[in-house]
Protein backbone atom coordinates (compact mmCIF):
# COMPACT_ATOMS: atom_id res chain seq x y z
CA UNK A 1 0.00 0.00 0.00
CA UNK A 2 1.25 3.41 -0.97
CA UNK A 3 -0.10 6.90 -0.74
CA UNK A 4 0.36 10.28 -2.36
CA UNK A 5 -0.77 13.66 -1.20
CA UNK A 6 -3.60 14.90 -3.40
CA UNK A 7 -1.91 18.21 -4.02
CA UNK A 8 0.74 16.21 -5.89
CA UNK A 9 -1.75 14.55 -8.20
CA UNK A 10 -0.81 16.72 -11.15
CA UNK A 11 2.77 15.55 -10.79
CA UNK A 12 1.50 11.98 -10.67
CA UNK A 13 -0.59 12.44 -13.78
CA UNK A 14 2.30 14.10 -15.58
CA UNK A 15 4.53 11.19 -14.66
CA UNK A 16 1.98 8.58 -15.77
CA UNK A 17 1.44 10.40 -19.03
CA UNK A 18 5.13 10.18 -19.85
CA UNK A 19 5.26 7.86 -22.83
CA UNK A 20 1.73 6.69 -22.21
CA UNK A 21 -1.75 8.04 -22.69
CA UNK A 22 -3.72 8.76 -19.58
CA UNK A 23 -7.50 8.80 -19.55
CA UNK A 24 -9.36 10.04 -16.52
CA UNK A 25 -12.55 11.92 -15.61
CA UNK A 26 -12.27 15.40 -17.06
CA UNK A 27 -14.81 18.15 -17.02
CA UNK A 28 -15.59 19.78 -20.32
CA UNK A 29 -18.50 22.12 -20.98
CA UNK A 30 -20.05 21.22 -17.65
CA UNK A 31 -19.97 17.44 -18.00
CA UNK A 32 -17.50 14.91 -16.71
CA UNK A 33 -16.37 12.15 -19.03
CA UNK A 34 -13.23 10.10 -19.42
CA UNK A 35 -10.82 12.01 -21.62
CA UNK A 36 -7.12 12.25 -22.33
CA UNK A 37 -5.19 14.12 -19.70
CA UNK A 38 -3.22 17.21 -20.50
CA UNK A 39 -1.95 20.10 -18.42
CA UNK A 40 -5.15 22.06 -18.99
CA UNK A 41 -7.52 19.19 -18.20
CA UNK A 42 -10.01 19.86 -15.43
CA UNK A 43 -9.69 16.53 -13.64
CA UNK A 44 -12.70 15.65 -11.53
CA UNK A 45 -12.09 12.68 -9.24
CA UNK A 46 -15.06 13.70 -7.07
CA UNK A 47 -17.53 12.74 -9.74
CA UNK A 48 -19.11 9.45 -8.85
CA UNK A 49 -20.59 8.83 -12.28
CA UNK A 50 -19.10 10.09 -15.47
CA UNK A 51 -21.81 10.56 -18.12
CA UNK A 52 -20.38 7.86 -20.35
CA UNK A 53 -18.68 4.85 -18.87
CA UNK A 54 -14.95 4.44 -19.56
CA UNK A 55 -15.59 1.57 -21.97
CA UNK A 56 -14.53 3.92 -24.81
CA UNK A 57 -10.93 3.33 -23.79
CA UNK A 58 -11.19 -0.27 -24.97
CA UNK A 59 -14.20 -0.20 -27.22
CA UNK A 60 -14.44 3.30 -28.72
CA UNK A 61 -17.75 4.64 -29.92
CA UNK A 62 -16.29 4.59 -33.39
CA UNK A 63 -13.11 3.10 -34.78
CA UNK A 64 -11.72 2.41 -38.20
CA UNK A 65 -11.05 -1.26 -38.91
CA UNK A 66 -9.40 -1.00 -42.27
CA UNK A 67 -9.10 1.24 -45.28
CA UNK A 68 -9.54 0.37 -48.94
CA UNK A 69 -7.79 2.54 -51.44
CA UNK A 70 -8.50 2.32 -55.12
CA UNK A 71 -6.02 3.27 -57.79
CA UNK A 72 -7.31 2.73 -61.26
CA UNK A 73 -8.91 -0.65 -61.02
CA UNK A 74 -6.47 -1.82 -58.32
CA UNK A 75 -7.63 -2.11 -54.75
CA UNK A 76 -5.32 -1.82 -51.77
CA UNK A 77 -6.52 -2.85 -48.32
CA UNK A 78 -4.75 -1.54 -45.24
CA UNK A 79 -5.65 -2.77 -41.81
CA UNK A 80 -5.80 -0.14 -39.10
CA UNK A 81 -2.78 -0.46 -36.82
CA UNK A 82 -3.52 -2.15 -33.52
CA UNK A 83 -2.97 -0.26 -30.32
CA UNK A 84 0.72 -0.32 -29.44
CA UNK A 85 1.13 2.61 -27.14
CA UNK A 86 0.46 1.91 -23.50
CA UNK A 87 -2.24 3.79 -21.68
CA UNK A 88 -3.74 4.11 -18.25
CA UNK A 89 -7.38 4.54 -17.40
CA UNK A 90 -7.39 6.25 -14.06
CA UNK A 91 -10.40 6.57 -11.82
CA UNK A 92 -12.63 3.77 -13.05
CA UNK A 93 -15.15 2.68 -10.48
CA UNK A 94 -15.77 -0.87 -9.31
CA UNK A 95 -18.82 -1.04 -11.57
CA UNK A 96 -16.77 0.14 -14.54
CA UNK A 97 -14.19 -2.54 -13.85
CA UNK A 98 -16.99 -5.10 -13.92
CA UNK A 99 -18.09 -3.56 -17.17
CA UNK A 100 -14.72 -4.38 -18.69
CA UNK A 101 -15.05 -7.93 -17.43
CA UNK A 102 -18.38 -8.22 -19.23
CA UNK A 103 -16.84 -6.86 -22.43
CA UNK A 104 -13.85 -9.19 -22.10
CA UNK A 105 -16.12 -12.19 -22.20
CA UNK A 106 -17.55 -10.98 -25.48
CA UNK A 107 -14.50 -9.66 -27.25
CA UNK A 108 -11.78 -11.96 -25.94
CA UNK A 109 -13.58 -15.23 -26.48
CA UNK A 110 -13.19 -16.87 -29.86
CA UNK A 111 -13.15 -15.30 -32.36
CA UNK A 112 -10.98 -12.81 -30.50
CA UNK A 113 -11.47 -9.18 -31.44
CA UNK A 114 -7.91 -8.13 -32.14
CA UNK A 115 -8.59 -4.40 -31.87
CA UNK A 116 -10.08 -4.83 -28.42
CA UNK A 117 -7.46 -7.31 -27.37
CA UNK A 118 -4.65 -4.94 -28.27
CA UNK A 119 -6.20 -2.22 -26.17
CA UNK A 120 -6.70 -4.53 -23.23
CA UNK A 121 -3.10 -5.65 -23.41
CA UNK A 122 -1.77 -2.13 -23.46
CA UNK A 123 -4.21 -0.63 -21.01
CA UNK A 124 -3.72 -0.37 -17.27
CA UNK A 125 -6.79 -0.04 -15.10
CA UNK A 126 -6.55 2.16 -12.05
CA UNK A 127 -9.78 1.83 -10.11
CA UNK A 128 -11.01 4.31 -7.56
CA UNK A 129 -13.24 3.41 -4.66
CA UNK A 130 -16.56 5.28 -4.62
CA UNK A 131 -16.30 7.99 -2.01
CA UNK A 132 -19.90 9.04 -2.45
CA UNK A 133 -22.18 6.35 -3.85
CA UNK A 134 -25.38 7.85 -5.16
CA UNK A 135 -29.04 7.04 -4.85
CA UNK A 136 -29.10 5.65 -8.37
CA UNK A 137 -26.35 3.11 -7.63
CA UNK A 138 -27.16 -0.58 -7.26
CA UNK A 139 -23.85 -2.33 -7.86
CA UNK A 140 -24.32 -4.33 -4.68
CA UNK A 141 -27.09 -6.24 -6.41
CA UNK A 142 -24.40 -7.70 -8.68
CA UNK A 143 -22.00 -8.49 -5.92
CA UNK A 144 -19.72 -5.58 -6.64
CA UNK A 145 -17.94 -3.88 -3.79
CA UNK A 146 -17.62 -0.18 -4.54
CA UNK A 147 -15.44 0.19 -1.50
CA UNK A 148 -12.85 -2.24 -2.80
CA UNK A 149 -12.63 -1.73 -6.56
CA UNK A 150 -10.37 -4.63 -7.38
CA UNK A 151 -12.59 -6.53 -9.77
CA UNK A 152 -13.76 -10.09 -9.60
CA UNK A 153 -10.69 -11.96 -10.67
CA UNK A 154 -7.89 -9.81 -9.33
CA UNK A 155 -6.25 -12.82 -7.77
CA UNK A 156 -5.68 -14.63 -11.09
CA UNK A 157 -2.02 -15.14 -11.98
CA UNK A 158 -0.48 -12.25 -13.87
CA UNK A 159 0.87 -12.68 -17.37
CA UNK A 160 -2.16 -14.56 -18.62
CA UNK A 161 -3.43 -12.14 -21.14
CA UNK A 162 -6.73 -13.63 -22.17
CA UNK A 163 -9.74 -14.52 -20.17
CA UNK A 164 -7.96 -14.25 -16.90
CA UNK A 165 -6.89 -10.71 -17.19
CA UNK A 166 -9.88 -9.09 -15.61
CA UNK A 167 -10.09 -6.77 -12.74
CA UNK A 168 -8.20 -3.63 -11.89
CA UNK A 169 -4.44 -3.37 -12.00
CA UNK A 170 -4.27 -0.78 -9.27
CA UNK A 171 -6.88 0.17 -6.71
CA UNK A 172 -6.93 3.66 -5.23
CA UNK A 173 -8.83 5.35 -2.43
CA UNK A 174 -9.44 9.04 -2.06
CA UNK A 175 -9.28 9.68 1.69
CA UNK A 176 -9.11 13.22 3.01
CA UNK A 177 -5.91 14.80 1.64
CA UNK A 178 -4.44 11.53 0.45
CA UNK A 179 -4.80 9.13 -2.34
CA UNK A 180 -4.05 5.56 -1.28
CA UNK A 181 -2.58 3.35 -3.94
CA UNK A 182 -2.50 -0.43 -4.07
CA UNK A 183 -1.06 -2.37 -6.99
CA UNK A 184 -2.97 -5.55 -7.73
CA UNK A 185 -1.37 -7.11 -10.77
CA UNK A 186 1.95 -7.32 -12.49
CA UNK A 187 0.89 -4.44 -14.76
CA UNK A 188 -0.14 -2.55 -11.69
CA UNK A 189 3.25 -3.19 -10.12
CA UNK A 190 4.99 -1.93 -13.23
CA UNK A 191 2.95 1.24 -13.24
CA UNK A 192 3.61 1.68 -9.54
CA UNK A 193 7.31 1.28 -10.17
CA UNK A 194 7.28 4.03 -12.79
CA UNK A 195 5.72 6.51 -10.36
CA UNK A 196 7.33 5.12 -7.28
CA UNK A 197 9.25 8.30 -6.67
CA UNK A 198 6.04 10.17 -5.99
CA UNK A 199 4.55 7.60 -3.65
CA UNK A 200 5.21 6.92 -0.04
CA UNK A 201 4.57 3.69 1.77
CA UNK A 202 1.36 3.57 3.75
CA UNK A 203 -0.56 1.31 6.09
CA UNK A 204 -3.91 -0.31 5.39
CA UNK A 205 -5.80 1.11 8.39
CA UNK A 206 -7.15 4.26 6.78
CA UNK A 207 -8.26 2.29 3.75
CA UNK A 208 -10.04 -0.29 5.85
CA UNK A 209 -11.82 2.45 7.77
CA UNK A 210 -12.82 4.16 4.55
CA UNK A 211 -14.10 0.87 3.15
CA UNK A 212 -16.39 0.31 6.07
CA UNK A 213 -17.62 3.91 5.84
CA UNK A 214 -18.46 3.40 2.16
CA UNK A 215 -20.10 0.05 2.80
CA UNK A 216 -22.33 1.68 5.38
CA UNK A 217 -23.45 4.24 2.81
CA UNK A 218 -24.04 1.46 0.25
CA UNK A 219 -26.32 -0.29 2.71
CA UNK A 220 -28.68 2.65 3.03
CA UNK A 221 -29.02 3.32 -0.72
CA UNK A 222 -32.61 3.16 -1.96
CA UNK A 223 -31.77 0.26 -4.25
CA UNK A 224 -29.60 -1.57 -1.71
CA UNK A 225 -32.06 -4.43 -1.44
CA UNK A 226 -32.72 -4.88 -5.14
CA UNK A 227 -33.03 -8.58 -5.83
CA UNK A 228 -32.30 -10.38 -9.06
CA UNK A 229 -34.21 -13.41 -8.00
CA UNK A 230 -35.89 -15.03 -10.94
CA UNK A 231 -33.47 -13.62 -13.51
CA UNK A 232 -30.65 -15.46 -15.13
CA UNK A 233 -30.03 -17.86 -17.97
CA UNK A 234 -32.93 -20.15 -17.17
CA UNK A 235 -35.66 -17.56 -17.30
CA UNK A 236 -35.86 -17.13 -21.07
CA UNK A 237 -39.31 -18.31 -21.93
CA UNK A 238 -41.11 -17.12 -18.86
CA UNK A 239 -39.67 -13.63 -19.05
CA UNK A 240 -39.90 -13.30 -22.80
CA UNK A 241 -43.60 -14.13 -22.83
CA UNK A 242 -44.54 -11.89 -19.94
CA UNK A 243 -47.35 -9.43 -20.67
CA UNK A 244 -45.54 -6.89 -18.50
CA UNK A 245 -43.42 -5.70 -21.42
CA UNK A 246 -46.58 -4.40 -23.03
CA UNK A 247 -46.89 -1.63 -20.47
CA UNK A 248 -43.24 -1.24 -19.51
CA UNK A 249 -42.01 -0.22 -22.93
CA UNK A 250 -44.62 2.44 -23.63
CA UNK A 251 -42.83 5.55 -22.45
CA UNK A 252 -39.65 4.40 -24.22
CA UNK A 253 -38.62 6.95 -26.84
CA UNK A 254 -36.40 4.49 -28.66
CA UNK A 255 -33.33 6.65 -28.16
CA UNK A 256 -29.95 5.13 -27.43
CA UNK A 257 -29.10 6.99 -24.24
CA UNK A 258 -29.20 3.94 -21.97
CA UNK A 259 -27.05 1.89 -24.31
CA UNK A 260 -24.49 4.60 -24.93
CA UNK A 261 -23.92 5.48 -21.29
CA UNK A 262 -23.88 1.79 -20.33
CA UNK A 263 -20.53 0.19 -19.37
CA UNK A 264 -21.54 -3.19 -20.76
CA UNK A 265 -23.53 -2.57 -23.93
CA UNK A 266 -21.33 -4.03 -26.60
CA UNK A 267 -23.39 -4.01 -29.79
CA UNK A 268 -21.87 -2.37 -32.77
CA UNK A 269 -22.54 -1.83 -36.43
CA UNK A 270 -19.97 -2.01 -39.21
CA UNK A 271 -20.28 0.59 -41.90
CA UNK A 272 -18.40 1.96 -44.85
CA UNK A 273 -17.44 5.55 -45.29
CA UNK A 274 -16.59 6.61 -48.83
CA UNK A 275 -13.35 8.50 -48.87
CA UNK A 276 -11.68 10.34 -51.70
CA UNK A 277 -10.26 7.19 -53.23
CA UNK A 278 -11.97 4.25 -51.57
CA UNK A 279 -13.71 3.41 -48.37
CA UNK A 280 -12.99 3.34 -44.71
CA UNK A 281 -14.63 0.45 -42.94
CA UNK A 282 -15.43 1.42 -39.41
CA UNK A 283 -17.48 0.16 -36.58
CA UNK A 284 -19.55 2.23 -34.25
CA UNK A 285 -21.73 1.56 -31.28
CA UNK A 286 -25.20 0.52 -32.14
CA UNK A 287 -28.23 0.45 -29.94
CA UNK A 288 -30.82 -2.28 -29.76
CA UNK A 289 -33.28 0.53 -29.12
CA UNK A 290 -32.86 1.81 -32.66
CA UNK A 291 -35.32 0.91 -35.36
CA UNK A 292 -32.57 -0.07 -37.77
CA UNK A 293 -30.67 -2.24 -35.29
CA UNK A 294 -29.59 -5.46 -37.00
CA UNK A 295 -31.43 -4.42 -40.10
CA UNK A 296 -30.91 -7.00 -42.81
CA UNK A 297 -31.79 -7.10 -46.45
CA UNK A 298 -34.84 -9.15 -45.66
CA UNK A 299 -35.99 -6.62 -43.09
CA UNK A 300 -35.72 -6.44 -39.36
CA UNK A 301 -36.34 -9.23 -36.93
CA UNK A 302 -37.58 -6.80 -34.31
CA UNK A 303 -40.09 -4.44 -35.83
CA UNK A 304 -41.69 -2.85 -32.79
CA UNK A 305 -40.35 -0.81 -29.93
CA UNK A 306 -41.78 -3.37 -27.53
CA UNK A 307 -39.57 -6.04 -29.05
CA UNK A 308 -36.54 -3.77 -29.03
CA UNK A 309 -37.13 -2.71 -25.46
CA UNK A 310 -37.54 -6.30 -24.32
CA UNK A 311 -34.37 -7.28 -26.15
CA UNK A 312 -32.21 -4.94 -24.14
CA UNK A 313 -33.30 -6.21 -20.76
CA UNK A 314 -33.55 -9.83 -21.80
CA UNK A 315 -30.00 -9.58 -23.05
CA UNK A 316 -28.64 -8.05 -19.91
CA UNK A 317 -30.50 -10.22 -17.45
CA UNK A 318 -31.20 -13.48 -19.29
CA UNK A 319 -29.31 -14.13 -22.52
CA UNK A 320 -25.91 -12.90 -21.40
CA UNK A 321 -25.92 -14.82 -18.11
CA UNK A 322 -27.10 -17.87 -20.03
CA UNK A 323 -23.89 -17.79 -22.05
CA UNK A 324 -21.53 -16.48 -19.37
CA UNK A 325 -21.76 -18.60 -16.28
CA UNK A 326 -24.61 -16.60 -14.82
CA UNK A 327 -22.80 -13.26 -14.97
CA UNK A 328 -25.27 -10.46 -15.53
CA UNK A 329 -24.50 -7.92 -18.20
CA UNK A 330 -25.37 -5.08 -15.84
CA UNK A 331 -23.09 -3.60 -13.24
CA UNK A 332 -25.58 -1.45 -11.37
CA UNK A 333 -23.75 1.74 -12.23
CA UNK A 334 -27.08 3.53 -12.45
CA UNK A 335 -26.16 5.72 -15.42
CA UNK A 336 -29.32 4.73 -17.27
CA UNK A 337 -31.33 5.47 -14.12
CA UNK A 338 -30.06 9.03 -14.21
CA UNK A 339 -30.07 9.64 -17.94
CA UNK A 340 -33.18 8.06 -19.43
CA UNK A 341 -35.28 10.90 -20.88
CA UNK A 342 -38.43 9.04 -19.90
CA UNK A 343 -37.14 7.95 -16.49
CA UNK A 344 -37.30 4.33 -17.47
CA UNK A 345 -34.52 2.01 -16.41
CA UNK A 346 -33.45 -1.50 -15.65
CA UNK A 347 -34.34 -1.13 -11.98
CA UNK A 348 -37.95 -0.36 -12.81
CA UNK A 349 -38.03 -3.40 -15.05
CA UNK A 350 -36.55 -5.67 -12.40
CA UNK A 351 -38.95 -4.33 -9.82
CA UNK A 352 -41.96 -4.70 -12.08
CA UNK A 353 -41.21 -8.38 -12.57
CA UNK A 354 -40.44 -8.86 -8.90
CA UNK A 355 -43.80 -7.41 -7.98
CA UNK A 356 -45.42 -9.73 -10.43
CA UNK A 357 -43.49 -12.73 -9.12
CA UNK A 358 -44.00 -11.77 -5.50
CA UNK A 359 -40.28 -11.34 -4.82
CA UNK A 360 -39.13 -9.21 -1.96
CA UNK A 361 -38.62 -6.02 -3.94
CA UNK A 362 -40.73 -2.95 -3.36
Amino acid sequence: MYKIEKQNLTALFRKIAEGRDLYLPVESAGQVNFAAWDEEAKVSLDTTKTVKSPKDAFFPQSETLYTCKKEGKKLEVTQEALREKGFVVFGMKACDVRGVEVLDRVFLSEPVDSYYQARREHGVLVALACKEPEESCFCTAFGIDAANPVGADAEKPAGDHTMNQTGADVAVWDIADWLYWKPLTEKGEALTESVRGLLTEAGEEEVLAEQSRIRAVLKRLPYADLSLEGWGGDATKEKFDSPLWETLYRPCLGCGTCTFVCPTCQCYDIKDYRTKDGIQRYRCWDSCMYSDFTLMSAGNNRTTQLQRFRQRFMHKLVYYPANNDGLFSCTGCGRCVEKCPSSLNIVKVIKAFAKEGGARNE
Partner: protein
Amino acid sequence: MSIANESFRPKIVAFCCNWCSYAGADLAGSSRLSYPADVKIIRVPCSCRVNPMFILRAFERGADGVILCGCHPGDCHYTTGNYYTRRRMTLLFSMLDFLGVENGRTRVEWVSAAEGVKFSATMNEFVETIRALGPNVRLGDLRCRS
Protein backbone atom coordinates in the same frame (compact mmCIF):
# COMPACT_ATOMS: atom_id res chain seq x y z
CA MET B 1 -5.43 39.44 -47.31
CA SER B 2 -6.32 38.65 -50.89
CA ILE B 3 -4.85 35.45 -52.25
CA ALA B 4 -3.51 34.26 -48.95
CA ASN B 5 -2.06 31.22 -50.57
CA GLU B 6 -1.32 31.10 -54.27
CA SER B 7 -1.04 27.35 -54.38
CA PHE B 8 -4.37 26.78 -52.62
CA ARG B 9 -6.86 25.40 -55.12
CA PRO B 10 -10.24 25.56 -53.43
CA LYS B 11 -13.04 23.13 -54.14
CA ILE B 12 -16.16 25.02 -54.99
CA VAL B 13 -19.57 23.58 -55.69
CA ALA B 14 -22.03 25.75 -57.59
CA PHE B 15 -25.66 24.67 -57.73
CA CYS B 16 -27.31 26.31 -60.73
CA CYS B 17 -30.96 26.28 -61.63
CA ASN B 18 -31.63 24.92 -65.07
CA TRP B 19 -33.60 27.86 -66.39
CA CYS B 20 -31.62 30.92 -65.46
CA SER B 21 -28.26 30.38 -63.85
CA TYR B 22 -27.21 27.25 -65.71
CA ALA B 23 -28.07 29.07 -68.92
CA GLY B 24 -26.20 32.09 -67.58
CA ALA B 25 -23.18 29.84 -67.08
CA ASP B 26 -23.62 28.56 -70.62
CA LEU B 27 -23.67 32.12 -71.85
CA ALA B 28 -20.54 32.91 -69.88
CA GLY B 29 -19.03 29.90 -71.64
CA SER B 30 -20.07 30.82 -75.13
CA SER B 31 -18.93 34.39 -74.45
CA ARG B 32 -15.56 32.98 -73.29
CA LEU B 33 -15.85 34.82 -69.98
CA SER B 34 -13.44 32.84 -67.88
CA TYR B 35 -13.52 32.01 -64.21
CA PRO B 36 -11.35 29.59 -62.25
CA ALA B 37 -11.64 25.87 -62.92
CA ASP B 38 -12.14 25.38 -59.18
CA VAL B 39 -15.83 25.99 -59.71
CA LYS B 40 -17.84 22.89 -60.59
CA ILE B 41 -21.46 23.27 -61.50
CA ILE B 42 -24.29 20.93 -60.54
CA ARG B 43 -27.50 21.39 -62.49
CA VAL B 44 -30.74 21.48 -60.51
CA PRO B 45 -34.19 22.18 -61.91
CA CYS B 46 -34.69 25.09 -59.53
CA SER B 47 -32.71 26.64 -56.70
CA CYS B 48 -35.47 25.39 -54.42
CA ARG B 49 -34.32 21.84 -55.15
CA VAL B 50 -31.18 22.46 -53.15
CA ASN B 51 -31.52 20.82 -49.80
CA PRO B 52 -29.37 22.14 -46.94
CA MET B 53 -28.21 18.53 -46.73
CA PHE B 54 -26.50 18.96 -50.10
CA ILE B 55 -24.66 22.02 -48.93
CA LEU B 56 -23.52 20.49 -45.68
CA ARG B 57 -22.59 17.33 -47.52
CA ALA B 58 -20.38 19.33 -49.84
CA PHE B 59 -18.60 20.88 -46.87
CA GLU B 60 -18.35 17.52 -45.17
CA ARG B 61 -16.74 16.13 -48.29
CA GLY B 62 -14.16 18.84 -48.42
CA ALA B 63 -15.70 21.73 -50.33
CA ASP B 64 -14.26 25.08 -49.39
CA GLY B 65 -17.19 27.08 -50.66
CA VAL B 66 -20.71 26.47 -51.87
CA ILE B 67 -22.63 28.88 -54.04
CA LEU B 68 -26.22 28.57 -55.12
CA CYS B 69 -27.47 30.42 -58.18
CA GLY B 70 -31.07 30.83 -59.22
CA CYS B 71 -33.39 33.03 -61.21
CA HIS B 72 -33.92 36.54 -59.90
CA PRO B 73 -36.79 36.76 -57.41
CA GLY B 74 -39.93 37.18 -59.44
CA ASP B 75 -38.47 35.40 -62.45
CA CYS B 76 -38.52 31.83 -61.19
CA HIS B 77 -39.50 29.40 -63.90
CA TYR B 78 -41.68 27.74 -61.30
CA THR B 79 -42.99 31.09 -60.05
CA THR B 80 -42.10 30.77 -56.39
CA GLY B 81 -39.17 28.38 -56.02
CA ASN B 82 -36.51 30.97 -55.39
CA TYR B 83 -38.61 32.69 -52.73
CA TYR B 84 -38.42 29.50 -50.68
CA THR B 85 -34.73 29.21 -51.47
CA ARG B 86 -34.23 32.71 -50.20
CA ARG B 87 -35.78 31.93 -46.82
CA ARG B 88 -34.16 28.54 -46.45
CA MET B 89 -30.70 29.75 -47.28
CA THR B 90 -30.94 32.92 -45.22
CA LEU B 91 -31.73 30.80 -42.19
CA LEU B 92 -29.16 28.14 -42.97
CA PHE B 93 -26.39 30.63 -43.59
CA SER B 94 -27.29 32.51 -40.48
CA MET B 95 -27.05 29.28 -38.50
CA LEU B 96 -23.67 28.41 -39.97
CA ASP B 97 -22.51 31.90 -39.09
CA PHE B 98 -23.87 31.41 -35.57
CA LEU B 99 -21.79 28.26 -35.28
CA GLY B 100 -18.73 30.27 -36.13
CA VAL B 101 -18.27 29.10 -39.70
CA GLU B 102 -16.89 31.85 -41.94
CA ASN B 103 -19.94 33.41 -43.59
CA GLY B 104 -18.06 34.00 -46.83
CA ARG B 105 -18.08 30.30 -47.65
CA THR B 106 -21.74 30.21 -48.53
CA ARG B 107 -23.51 32.40 -51.00
CA VAL B 108 -26.69 32.78 -52.98
CA GLU B 109 -26.65 34.81 -56.18
CA TRP B 110 -29.45 35.46 -58.63
CA VAL B 111 -28.16 35.12 -62.18
CA SER B 112 -30.43 35.23 -65.19
CA ALA B 113 -29.95 33.43 -68.48
CA ALA B 114 -28.83 36.71 -69.98
CA GLU B 115 -26.23 37.45 -67.33
CA GLY B 116 -23.18 35.59 -68.54
CA VAL B 117 -21.07 38.51 -67.47
CA LYS B 118 -22.54 38.47 -63.99
CA PHE B 119 -22.07 34.73 -63.73
CA SER B 120 -18.41 34.93 -64.58
CA ALA B 121 -17.83 37.97 -62.37
CA THR B 122 -19.65 36.32 -59.46
CA MET B 123 -17.59 33.16 -59.75
CA ASN B 124 -14.34 35.09 -60.01
CA GLU B 125 -15.19 37.05 -56.95
CA PHE B 126 -16.40 34.03 -54.99
CA VAL B 127 -13.25 32.06 -55.76
CA GLU B 128 -11.22 35.06 -54.68
CA THR B 129 -13.13 35.21 -51.39
CA ILE B 130 -12.62 31.51 -50.75
CA ARG B 131 -8.93 31.72 -51.60
CA ALA B 132 -8.59 34.51 -49.09
CA LEU B 133 -10.42 32.45 -46.45
CA GLY B 134 -8.18 29.46 -47.10
CA PRO B 135 -9.09 25.80 -46.73
CA ASN B 136 -12.32 25.00 -44.96
CA VAL B 137 -11.37 23.51 -41.64
CA ARG B 138 -14.34 24.33 -39.49
CA LEU B 139 -16.91 22.45 -41.51
CA GLY B 140 -14.85 19.75 -43.09
CA ASP B 141 -14.55 16.09 -42.50
CA LEU B 142 -10.87 15.64 -42.15
CA ARG B 143 -10.90 12.16 -43.61
CA CYS B 144 -11.69 13.52 -47.05
CA ARG B 145 -8.47 15.48 -47.10
CA SER B 146 -6.16 12.55 -46.63
